[in-house]
Each structure stands twice: as structure tokens, then as C-alpha cells.
């Protein structure tokens, strides 16, 4: 391997960490009040819902799939909560997770059993899912007052907000799932070469249904946390365009869209990077327009570096 090839390879694998490091350094030097505990907490709280969705998305993309329905699942979770909150926060959260589980399992069924392309199968749920959420909620925003449920969005444990704690725990669980279990190995094998995986006797259908179900449940968890932080159920706006944020974070984190590889730490760093970019632009008073164009450039740059050569 030549030196340039080695260098490219290294950049492909570690580009996202370098970018996060550079941004942190830049902000430490040039942004007022950046190195404060309060600021870091705010950034992490804002990033937590995206991270939870991106973890599921990383698994799906690892199987050479994609899940466009995650934003709609968050909306469904948000719509379900006020219906059951009267019975207490636990049943409400459980029902929201069941909704995510049902949508995820249905996606998995469509992809694995019926054989529909992931992008179309989940597109149908994207279109229909938010509509269903709005129908359930009568198109209304509902203020939530249950103190126990709202505590989920406001309280912290030893200074760490609950949502950040949950996101961190889930990241560890997903990392363990991909790197330490048979399921994780099978998932990557299916993404690498589905036909070979089938011929090798791997339970392709089961694994795919499992992966989409996990993705649906994670999206629902994210929807529950975001709803609790908002102190309102807002199915019209909850998780809007979340599928694009999540896919961006996963891809920027070095998981290829072609499947066969899942980088959990990369995904976490991808989410952190996009959050840092947004925070940096806001703190330096750059308008939303410039912020969006810079994000577009970052996506192209990241994918250009990571692209597979012919």
C-alpha cells in the first residue's frame, strides 16, 4: 500500500473524530462561554433524540437498508402518549413504544418477507404514519401536565440529564449488540452480501425484521423523550425531517450506505459533529440559510472522503 493510499484509508476511518476535535478546539478558542458545563449539557440534551434515532438507523443501513419512517414513528409516539397518560406515565410510554415496535416490525415484514425495497416500504410509512398520528391527535397540539412524565425531560441524575443518560446507555447497548452478539455478526453479513448470507443458512428474514423493529422502538423512545422535553404532544412537527438528520449523522460517521459495516462510535461522533456545527454557526450569529448550506457541504465532503473507489 502506498503512503497516499494509507493516508486516505486513515482519513476515511478517522475523519469524523478529527473533525469533532478541530471544531472543539475552534470553539474553545473563539467562542465565548463555550467551555462551560451548562453549554455542554445543552448541546448533549439537544443531540440526544437524534442520537437515539441514528443508532437504529445505523443498524438498518448496516443491512444495506434505510428507514425513512423514523420521523413518522416519533410523531406516532407523541400522538399516543396523551391518550394513555391518564393511566399514568408508564402505560403511556409503553403504548408509545408498542406503536414504534409495530411500525418497525411491519417495515421489517415488508422488506424481508414481501421483498420490497427498504426505501419504498418505509416511504409508505413516512407518508401514512404522520397522517395517522395527526388523525389520532385530531391535528391538535396537546399540552402535557403529568409531573412524573415531564420529569423525564427536565430531571437529571448526578448532573447528567435523563435523556442524555438514556441515549448513552442505548449507544452502549447497540455497540454491544453489533460487536459482541451473533445477531450483530449476522446483521453485518446480510448487509455485506445478502445472497451469500442466505446460502450460508443465516436467518436473514428474522434478523432483518429484528433490525427494523429495533429501529422503530428506538425512534419511539426518541419521540417519548422529545415529547417530555417539549411538555406537549405535537404530532405535526415532532421528528419532522428526522430521517434526514439521522441518515446524515450515520453516513458522516463512516457507515457506508452500501451496507456490511456498522460504526456505532462513528455514529455517535457523527451526531456530535452535526450538533457542534449547528451550535458553532448559531453562536457566531450565522443565519439559518448559511448554516444549511454549510451542512450540505459537510455531508458532501464526508461522503466524498469515505466513498468506495471503483
Amino acid at each position: 500500500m502506498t503512503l497516499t493510499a494509507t493516508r486516505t484509508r486513515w482519513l476515511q476511518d478517522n475523519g469524523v473524530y478529527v473533525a469533532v476535535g478541530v471544531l472543539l478546539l475552534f470553539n474553545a478558542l473563539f467562542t465565548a462561554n463555550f467551555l462551560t458545563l451548562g453549554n455542554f449539557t445543552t448541546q448533549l440534551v439537544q443531540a440526544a433524540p437524534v442520537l437515539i434515532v441514528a443508532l437504529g438507523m445505523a443498524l438498518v443501513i448496516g443491512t444495506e437498508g434505510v428507514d425513512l419512517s423514523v420521523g413518522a414513528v416519533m410523531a406516532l409516539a407523541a400522538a399516543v402518549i396523551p391518550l394513555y397518560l391518564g393511566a399514568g406515565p408508564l402505560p403511556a410510554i409503553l403504548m408509545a413504544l408498542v406503536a414504534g415496535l409495530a411500525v418497525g416490525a411491519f417495515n421489517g415484514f415488508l422488506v424481508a418477507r414481501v421483498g420490497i425495497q427498504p426505501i419504498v416500504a418505509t416511504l409508505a410509512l413516512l407518508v401514512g404514519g404522520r397522517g395517522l398520528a395527526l388523525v389520532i391527535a385530531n391535528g391538535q397540539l396537546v399540552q402535557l401536565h403529568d409531573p412524573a412524565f415531564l420529569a423525564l425531560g427536565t430531571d437529571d441524575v448526578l448532573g447528567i440529564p435523563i435523556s442524555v443518560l438514556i441515549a448513552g446507555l442505548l449507544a452502549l447497548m447497540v455497540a454491544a449488540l453489533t460487536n459482541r452478539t451473533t445477531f450483530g455478526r449476522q446483521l453485518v453479513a446480510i448487509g455485506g452480501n445478502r445472497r451469500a448470507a442466505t446460502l450460508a443458512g443465516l436467518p436473514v428474514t428474522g434478523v432483518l425484521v429484528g433490525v427494523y423493529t429495533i429501529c422503530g422502538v428506538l425512534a419511539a423512545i426518541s419521540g417519548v423523550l422529545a415529547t417530555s422535553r417539549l411538555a406537549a404532544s405535537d404530532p405535526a412537527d415532532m421528528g419532522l425531517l428526522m430521517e434526514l438528520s439521522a441518515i446524515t449523522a450515520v453516513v458522516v460517521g463512516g457507515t457506508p450506505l452500501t451496507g456490511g459495516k456498522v460504526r456505532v462510535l462513528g455514529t455517535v461522533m457523527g451526531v456530535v459533529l452535526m450538533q457542534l456545527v449547528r451550535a458553532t454557526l448559531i453562536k457566531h450569529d450565522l443565519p439559518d440559510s448559511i448554516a444549511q448550506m454549510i451542512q450540505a457541504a459537510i455531508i458532501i465532503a464526508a461522503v466524498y472522503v469515505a466513498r468506495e473507489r471503483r
Partner: protein
Amino acid sequence: MTTLTAATRTKVLQRQGAAVALILMVTVSWLVFPRFGSLDNLRDLALQGSFLAVIALGMTFVIITGGIDLSVGSLYALGGVLAAWGSQYGFLAALTLPLAVCGAIGLINGLLIARTNMAPFIVTLASLLFARGLLLAITDEGATTYQIAPDSAFVELGRGTVFGFGYPIFIAAALCALGGVVLNRTNFGQNVFATGGAEQSAVLMGVPVARTKIGVYTASGTLAGLAGALTAAYLQSGVTVIGVGTELDAISVVVIGGTLLTGGMGTVLGTVIGVGLIKVIQNVINQIGTLDSNYQSVVSGVFLLIVVVLQRMLRR
């Protein structure tokens, strides 16, 4: 021989499934809702469909090459804003500015996809963000809505009518007819099918795959810009908030029309029928009146699902 006829029958069903569904929907709506068949309603229906048809036409070409273009919703909005802004400098500026800018962004999409081997999904996702950012930049972060002088020739383009049918309907119909001819009767069309059917083989056979891809993404961007310009002319202003999710509507109607997302197969007529179906569904839900308008997306989603499941079943 029997297997051949069975295969042919399947193919016909797959191709004509959307047409059959459209005819059924129209017939039932005509009988159930007295207002559905009124000339006013049909004119309105055709006009609403014409903007989406222009966008979906470009998407059809892109999808047949095996690609996807997520940027069209943003380009649609950007095109409208540019047209409204340009209209102060006359008709020509109002029309050419959106076509040029949106076409250029489409060209960049095509160049990146064809020359660097990056996934269309990601490249066009980035330009979705970029175009939305550009739109915000030229409208003071969305605070300014450019108006078009009501007596200008450009407004006529969107609001003028022949026998009550709006100009956009004829523009969309002419473009779709042209698109059908290009797809089926020209070398470029053949290259589009070859690129999507088997890219490797197409390259080996000397098909100019890169040039074909650049062509379809440029066309898709330009058409989205045109749809935006027509919408702005119709609304007499460059509305900044339109077009969110329009790319998904366009993909849905193309898929419903029988074009395979895997590429290599599809028709413009199918896409037009797909547009008709979605618009008739929306129209009927509006006619029912008592039904929550949110049911529209539920029904559209369910419909999309039924179509792709049927397509899949028939292909076996």
C-alpha cells in the same frame, strides 16, 4: 408457451394496474359525488396535478437510471422564489432565472453522482439542504415573500386559461408528451434504460453512462425549477414554505405509475396516471368534507403500499 402468456399477462397488469385503479376511482367518484364531475372541479384537479406532473416527469427519468433525486422539493420552492424575484425584470428573467439556477444545481448533482461514484441519495440530500439554504438567503431568512405584479405577462403564464383550463395544464401535458418521446424514441432514452438496467454492462457496451446520468439530474433540477416558476405565477408570489416533502410525493407517484425503483423500467404515462390517482384521492377526501384532511396522507400511504406489494407479488 403458457408461461410466456402468463408472464405477459403479469406484465400488462403491472403496467396497467395504476390505470385500472384510476378508471375505477374516477368512475366511483363520479357516481358518488355529484360535484366531482363538474367542469370546475375537473379543471381544478388538472391544474393541481400539472405542477406535480412536471416534477415527477424529471423524477421518472432519474429513477429509471436507478437513481433518486431528493432535491426537487427544495428546488421547486427555490424556483418559485427566484421567479417571483426575477419578475421585476420582466417575463424572460422570471422564467429563465429559476430554470438556470435549478438546472445548475441539478447539473452539480449529476456531476457529483456520475463522476465521483457517490450515492444519489446522499448527494441530492445535500442539495436539498443547500437549495433550502439558498432560498432562505435570498428571502431574508424566509421573512420576505416576493410578489409578482398582477398585471404582468408572467402571471398570465400561471393564471391564463384556454376553455377554462389553465396554461400550466397544457405546459405539463406538452412536456410529458415530449418526455415520453425522448424516453422511447431517442438514443438518450435508450441510454437511460440501459444505465438503469445493468450499469456495468452498459459501460462495457459503450453507453455514455456518466453523460446520461448528468443529463437526467440536470433535467430533473430544471423541471423542478419550472414547476416552481409556474406555481409562483399561479400564486402571484414566491411562497417560501412550499415544497417540503414534495420529493416524496414525486417519488410516490412515479412508483405508483409502475416505474421500478431498481431502475431499467418505467413509463412517463404511468407517472401521469400516478399523479392523477393521488390528486383524485385528495380531491375525493376534500369532497367528503367531514373527513379529517389528515386522512389524505394515510390513504396515500396505504395506496402506495398496496401498489408496491402488488408489483412485488406480480413480479414473482
